[in-house]
């Protein structure tokens, strides 16, 4: 007991004297953990470039090949899995919904924050109230609604329910509230109309909110899996995520092409993340998400 205590004391002394050693250990651990966290990405990219027989057998492949990519992009098409089309579908759906959410959220957010009308408070409360409900509650009834409109298996089925967002309205209204009314009054004096005020004054003054809503909406739609899985049947209209899942279900043995598909599905998100990381961080530290 006494001996171990003396040893601990000596250790502590040593550590104090050697702050440098401690900080080196700290950085080694942090780098190690960072690499562990990046490992799945690295493995995915490398494995998608390996010859099929080496995916599980060799860490470092004998040579790199794009076979998996050409397989999924051309042979996939012949097997009834049009991945290029899927990628374009994903881009189309995500861009349309994101644009719509930004435009509508800015307009409605302006109404909540800056127009003094009798429903402003009710609207704001309603938006907050809506955000309390978990999305999974609405999966089945939304399917019935879309089915009732005769929209199953159409692009509209994927796009319509996402056109507006309570969270987007909330974010914009919060940001607009902090902008002084003087800006609006001055613009009105100059004869600016309402839309000009919203999109040339309010939105540019809320740059980070706009960026945050854009990133999180785009990523949310890009990554949305359950909803398109339910409403879509036709492979040529499916977003990439669902097509990839279907391919995985039927042809799970084609590991290389599946990983190539995963890379294609992941890369746009990673690029957006790297470009807009500043806003991504801001979005996380804001209390409401």
């Amino acid at each position, binding site marked *: 007991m006494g001996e171990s205590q003396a040893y601990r004391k000596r250790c502590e002394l040593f550590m104090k004297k050697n702050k440098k050693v401690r900080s080196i250990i700290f950085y080694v651990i942090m780098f190690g953990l960072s690499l562990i966290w990046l490992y799945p990405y690295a493995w995915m990219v490398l494995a998608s470039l390996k010859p099929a027989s080496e995916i*599980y057998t060799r860490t470092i492949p004998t040579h790199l090949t794009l076979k998996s990519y050409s397989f999924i992009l051309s042979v996939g098409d012949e097997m009834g899995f049009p991945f290029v089309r899927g990628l374009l579908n994903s881009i189309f759906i995500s861009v349309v919904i994101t644009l719509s959410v930004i435009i509508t959220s800015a307009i*409605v957010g302006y109404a909540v924050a800056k*127009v003094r009308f009798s429903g402003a408070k009710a609207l704001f409360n309603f938006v907050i109230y809506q955000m309390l409900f*978990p999305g*999974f509650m609405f999966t*089945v009834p939304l*399917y019935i609604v879309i089915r009732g409109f005769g929209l199953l298996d159409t692009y509209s089925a994927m796009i319509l329910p996402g056109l507006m967002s*309570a969270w987007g309205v909330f974010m914009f209204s919060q940001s607009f509230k902090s902008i002084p009314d003087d800006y609006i009054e001055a613009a009105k004096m100059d004869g600016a109309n309402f839309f000009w005020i919203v999109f040339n004054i309010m939105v540019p003054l809320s740059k980070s909110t706009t960026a945050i809503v854009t990133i999180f909406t785009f990523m949310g739609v890009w990554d949305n899996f359950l909803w398109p899985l339910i409403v879509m049947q036709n492979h040529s209209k499916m977003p990439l995520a669902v097509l990839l899942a279907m391919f995985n279900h039927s042809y799970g043995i084609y590991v290389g092409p*599946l990983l190539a598909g995963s890379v294609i*599905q992941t890369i746009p998100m990673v690029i957006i993340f790297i470009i807009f990381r500043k806003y991504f961080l801001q979005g996380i530290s804001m209390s409401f998400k």
Partner: protein
Amino acid sequence: MKNGIRTLKRIENIKGWLLSLPYWIFASIFFGYAFIWLVLLAMSKWNFITPRKMIWLKNFIHVFQDPMFWTVTWNTTRFMLYYIPSVLVLSLALAIALSKAKHFGAFFAMSFLVANVSSGVAYSIVFSKIFSSTGPINNFLYDTFGVVIPWFTDPTWAMLSIVIIVLWKFVGYYALIFLAGLQAIPKELYEAADLDGATKWTKFFRITLPLLNPSFVMIIVLAIGLSFGIFTEPFMITGGGPLNTTQTFMLTIYTTAFEKYKAGYAAAWSIVAAAMSFSIIWVSRKLIERDVSFS
């Protein structure tokens, strides 16, 4: 003059309603109308085709009599028991480490955060391959320890493995919530504590932990919501198996509605699941939420 003001007010009023009209319409269809359908469905027996039949509360009685309900409840409980404590400890530790890192802080933060932007389907595929019986993790384990772990195929391991990959995805995200909380704590508090001769641990338990309360609450709320809504990972990797050990609420709602075509029964499941997640969130907020002020 008075009349003029009144007209202006009226114009503002009309303007506000007109601008928000599209939102009211949208919300009344995709929220209000859908909500009415949810309630109606939950009290009906319907297979999407033959006429809908009102059976009132029978669906709910069936949910509680369904052994699957108790399996799923137990699975969700296990998920929360594994996930919430470990994600809190790991992300808090990471947040503290990030706040201490004088160099490479941005690189560390990005490495952990980039996991969060991976697409659900893609990362499920990647992890199912990495953890497969011939995958790199098991190759490594076999070469060094001579063991192979049946990550996703063994009833005792499967849920834990899903928790591990969800942890991978969310630790960085939650760490940044903690980091924002840490940065909001005034430095003077620590300086005052130093003057009183407080040790590192006293400062941690008396200042850091209590003042991080809002971050804790937020992360716990997010984590509980995730436990009830999780779908993509079990759907892609285990399909709810082995032996239903990774069946989740969302997975059961999906199969009930869209594979067994029991729309009403699935709606009742969603209401029960939502009610459960609400109550658990409410109870845990009651238990842990404290009024924190920095003064």
